[in-house]
């Protein structure tokens, strides 16, 4: 019976779609135009990145490549700009950043949602309100805090020309990976707490209570009961946080003074000279820098979409 009911309207729809109405044509023309408009800059960047700079100098960007297309710019960027090292820099910053943020945010969210205490709403508000603070506001005091915070110097791991300090190589927070990791954790914890708290509200308190009855301590409940239940939320947050931290340009530029410590986004600046700027080379570098988030997005698409709607409905 349900099949009959379903097939009825479907035939109607099919018939309707055969008649091409002007509104539909306009709609599709509009959609195609919008897609073209959005994709144009991307294709233009790809096109430019495949042309040697000399070719565009001689003939301009609005010309058909006289000497053909090549991957020479990509090769240059890979070797001359040492892009692989800067990917590594990003990784060194983002991976601990994401893990730390999730651990801390889930702890706050856990305490504020699974237990009733006097200030739990205020604490939650405090963390969410932190989102509203524009990071640029605190940059000057932060610079001085970083310059005056002593950090242990525990040696470093050397890879090629690059040296990854364990904690600090100048006994300060300034100009260190750990400094960048910490500032990311600070600024992302607010958002992550907000989202995770909303998700944890959907977990009934009875689970926590029965775990308590079974003799689990608070830490145990957080780690063995609540965190596993939050896996979808954590996965969604991890992918979002990864892209947030990956795309950071500002902190790395302001709080790092060594060019070779920069993550890939700010390292692209190194492709500019004093006067001459090879835009084709920069296009190649920028496209390479775009790749990891795109790959992450394709692989973890489901988490992304889940992340966008996470906590929007209370279960």
């Amino acid at each position, binding site marked *: 019976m349900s099949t009959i009911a379903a097939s009825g309207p479907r035939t109607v729809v099919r018939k309707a779609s055969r008649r091409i109405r002007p509104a539909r044509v306009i709609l599709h023309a509009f959609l195609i135009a919008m897609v073209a408009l959005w994709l144009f800059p991307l294709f233009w960047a790809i096109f430019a990145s495949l042309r040697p*700079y000399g070719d565009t*100098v001689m003939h*301009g960007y609005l010309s058909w490549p006289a000497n053909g297309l090549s991957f020479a710019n990509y090769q240059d960027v890979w070797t001359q700009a040492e892009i692989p090292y800067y990917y590594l820099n990003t990784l060194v910053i983002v991976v601990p950043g994401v893990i730390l943020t999730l651990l801390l945010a889930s702890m706050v969210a856990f305490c504020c949602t699974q237990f009733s205490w006097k200030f739990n709403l205020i604490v939650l508000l405090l963390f969410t309100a932190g989102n509203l603070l524009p990071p640029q506001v605190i940059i000057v005091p932060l610079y001085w805090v970083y310059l005056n915070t002593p950090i242990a110097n525990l040696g470093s791991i050397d890879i090629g020309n690059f040296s990854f300090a364990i904690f600090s190589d100048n006994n300060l927070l300034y100009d260190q990976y750990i400094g960048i990791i910490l500032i990311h954790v600070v600024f992302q914890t607010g958002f992550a707490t907000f989202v995770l708290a909303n998700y944890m509200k959907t977990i009934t308190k009875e689970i926590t209570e029965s775990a308590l009855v079974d003799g689990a301590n608070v830490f145990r409940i957080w780690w063995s009961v609540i965190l596993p239940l939050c896996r979808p939320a954590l996965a969604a947050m991890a992918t979002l946080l990864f892209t947030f931290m990956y795309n950071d340009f500002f902190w790395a530029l302001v709080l790092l003074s060594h*060019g070779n410590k920069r993550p890939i986004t700010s390292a692209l600046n190194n*492709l500019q000279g*004093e*006067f*001459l700027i090879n835009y084709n080379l920069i296009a190649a570098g920028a496209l390479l820098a775009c790749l990891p988030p795109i790959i992450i997005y394709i692989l973890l698409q489901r988490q992304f979409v889940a992340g966008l709607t996470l906590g929007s409905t209370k279960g």
Partner: protein
Amino acid sequence: MGDSREAKRVRNLLAAKDAALNLNLDLSRRDVLKIAGYGSLAAFIAACGGNNATTTTGITAKGGTMSLGSYNTDPNSKKGTQAIVDAFTAANGGTKVKLNTVDHGTFQNQISSYLQGTPEDAFTWFSGHRMRFFADKGLATPIDDVWDAVKSNYTAGFEASIKGNDGKAYAIPTDYYPWAVFYRKDVWSQHGYTVPTSWDAFKALCVKMKADGLIPIAFADKDGWPAQGTFDILNLRLNGYDFHTELLTGKQKWTDQRVTNVYKKWSEITPYYSPAFAGLTWEQGADQLLRKQAGMYLLGLFVSDEFKASGSAADLEQLDFFAFPDMGTQYDAEKALDAPIDVYMLTKKSPTLQTDLGQAKAFMEFVAKGSTQVLYWQNAPGSIPTANDADTSTYPALTKKAVQIVSQAKKITQYFDRDSRPDYSGPNGMQGFLLKFLSNPKQDTTSLQGQMQAFWDSLPPE
């Protein structure tokens, strides 16, 4: 068997004795290479071992370590800097140089926080007001002792450019490049143009070029700073070096009638500029010259970089330039021009400077040598060595000519943004004001000049 081997050894020894007497070593080319290879390997190992040994002589020290902050990120200058550092390490008992390279734009924008934070021992910078500013702030170490040792290698003009307001030496000038009017020799000979020496001849040439279907003067001001080059040269020619430097440091008023004259004269050539110049980068302006669309281009010697980047050596060969024409004032005789000088300086707040001071000073002495500067120039040919003992024999014609017009100049300026305060020369200041002027050059500039002065007055004390 043992016996025969022994006998062979003795025989060989005797033969070797003979050979040594005749100096007939009979070494093949490969043997020589091998020996050279082992030799350099041994030297390398020795150098590695000696890294931490510091020997001090006078103000400089060998061995040990030092660090250098560099803004040379484009491939050529990066290679040049690395070549200098390697040569220094080899020449100074294996001093290990930690090099921190940050791109030019960021380095300049963050110089203040860089110098107050944890900078390297030495750093690349500019002479002129920008150097004196940080010297006054106590963020640079004076190097009078180094300068006394090397000053015989420099002209008085360079010496003046590295003195702080307190009269101390703060930097070692290493390279410079002049601003001039560039053109293509082939285009000019095709149309029969000749180099104009007076303002009227210059304007007449523009008219002729326009009639021939060329853009007479390529002009590109998207980034704001290129227009300041024209302001500099017009002000220098019309009002002289002293007025120009005083104006840029606030000792003269922007509302002065002499400034009005500069804008009046400037408006006579603006009709010959590239169309839509406010949206063109300097590279696009250079491309107009390269593609034979434009006749002239007032810019720095770095315009040759774009010609080189085109990959066409034939085009680069056609590039030539002349000094800006005379304006018929008493200041023509100064032959003044913009020739920005790049320098090396010592920081003050480097955490390692106490221990590395000897090595850092040795490095400053090293970059003051002509041979060092030529080494850099070979990698980055847009920058001309400053030292008197630099070997000029290998310079191409364009570089030789650049040296010539700078040596003829009685007064040298450092370019607007290096001679004035950075906030005044930036996009909110003169870069914006000049674009406003250029959008309507025939306007009465009184109110615009009033804005310029008001902006200067509104700036906090440096």
